């Protein structure tokens, strides 16, 4: 697992470095806050480039021929993207945002949902263009829904609670983490299923 995470780091450290550099420049020069669209673009680019590198080199043919479980290849990619975004989001939040914890958690949950929606798309389709177009369409749609809900954060929280377990007096943090966890887990299982059934071409 560590080797697979290391592989992901080695193929994408330049993009990660660039993203942190951007944050640092904006912070040090006291520039206006980075538009959210920049993050969305970075998010799409980062995922697309990881999968595109795999496709270009057919690296999965090599990995599957080694003593590695197919599920572990998927899990490593999930963990890498998830951990990267978690750290990046936390750094970004610490430097720039003075929002309430609830809003922070809501945004973080939205990020987890975006990751959950995005990754199976990349396992499902082979062509990089189809992947990017579908990914963009799904992200645009989900962002639109998210913005609608974000207009009133309380509504969104109520909505999330309703979707999870309304009748239990959950704490906000626990509810949002549970919600994120469920999304990520279902997404991982779905991606594993797709990856285990497909030919590596």
């Amino acid at each position: 697992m560590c080797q697979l995470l290391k592989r992901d780091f080695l193929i994408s450290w330049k993009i990660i470095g660039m993203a942190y550099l951007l944050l640092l420049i904006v912070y040090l020069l006291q520039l206006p806050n980075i538009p959210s669209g920049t993050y969305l673009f970075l998010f799409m680019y980062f995922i697309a480039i990881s999968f595109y590198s795999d496709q270009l080199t057919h690296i999965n043919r090599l990995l599957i021929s080694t003593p590695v479980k197919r599920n572990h290849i998927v899990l490593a990619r999930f963990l890498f993207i998830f951990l990267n975004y978690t750290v990046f989001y936390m750094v970004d939040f610490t430097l720039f945002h003075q929002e309430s914890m609830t809003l922070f958690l809501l945004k973080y949950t939205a990020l987890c949902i975006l990751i959950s929606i995005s990754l199976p798309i990349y396992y499902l389709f082979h062509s990089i263009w189809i992947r990017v177009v579908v990914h963009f369409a799904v992200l645009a749609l989900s962002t639109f829904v998210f913005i609608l809900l974000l207009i009133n954060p309380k509504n969104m929280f109520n909505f999330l609670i309703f979707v999870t377990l309304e009748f239990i007096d959950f704490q906000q943090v626990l509810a949002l983490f549970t919600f994120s966890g469920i999304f990520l887990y279902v997404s991982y299982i779905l991606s594993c299923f797709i990856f285990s059934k497909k030919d590596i071409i």
Partner: protein
Amino acid sequence: MNVVEFSNVSKKRDEFHLKELNFSIPQGFITGFIGPNGSGKTSTIQMMMDILQVDNGDIFIYGDSHKNHHTKQKIGFVYDELFMYGDFTIKKMKSIIAPLYENWNEEVFHEHLQEFNLPLNKKIKKFSKGMKMKCSLLFALAHEPEFIVMDEPTAGLDPIFRRELLDLLQNLMIREEQTIFFSTHNTTDLDRIADYIVFIHEGRIIFQQSMEQIREQFHVVKGKLEFLDEDIRNLFKGIQETSIGFTALFEGDPILFADFSDELVIEKATLEDIMYFIVKGGQ
């Protein structure tokens, strides 16, 4: 004992169909996998390595399902292309690949690195075709696998390295339970080193035999056109006719032609002859 067993394996890919593949790879020998381009060699190997999914049938490696990732500890593989990140160096690739193998031998790795004259810190995308093949071989051998799978390893290589590679494979066979499965459409590679041959054509296994059986059973018969009548034609696997005469592939005991020794020339068939006549048939 067989290292690999294919049992009624089928696979449909676009227009191409691999049909009811049944063959085995015996332990301790070099098995050549021959067939013309597009006959299904690479797809068969990719199914064995779980890169392609099997539609029907079973593949067993060391008696276990080919999907069992633990079994792959014993397998070294060399594909027709190098599937590694072009921006990585051998050193970087090793840092990812080596920990995956329980038996990774650093000493063997460095021995082969020197033997193949490969740079540790040069980007893989700057490697020549020969260097890429050597790199693939380097990683395949460094964990001292019991079973080596090679898909067209000599394609595009110069004759010197081809010969070196075949010598290397023969040297590996000194180890007792070493098994090699070697796919190629260049049969001269196998005439020298193979113990068994599996012949595939248009997605079907035509035969699996030992080289000894092949040398005894297949003969090339040459003679004048007048000799050919319908009954004689039916004896041959394939015939090539020219204005001078005919050349045909015969499977069986050539004693059948003993009475015609003045009219016919009978020679042992090479793998190339066998492949040519079976693929071409009576054309």
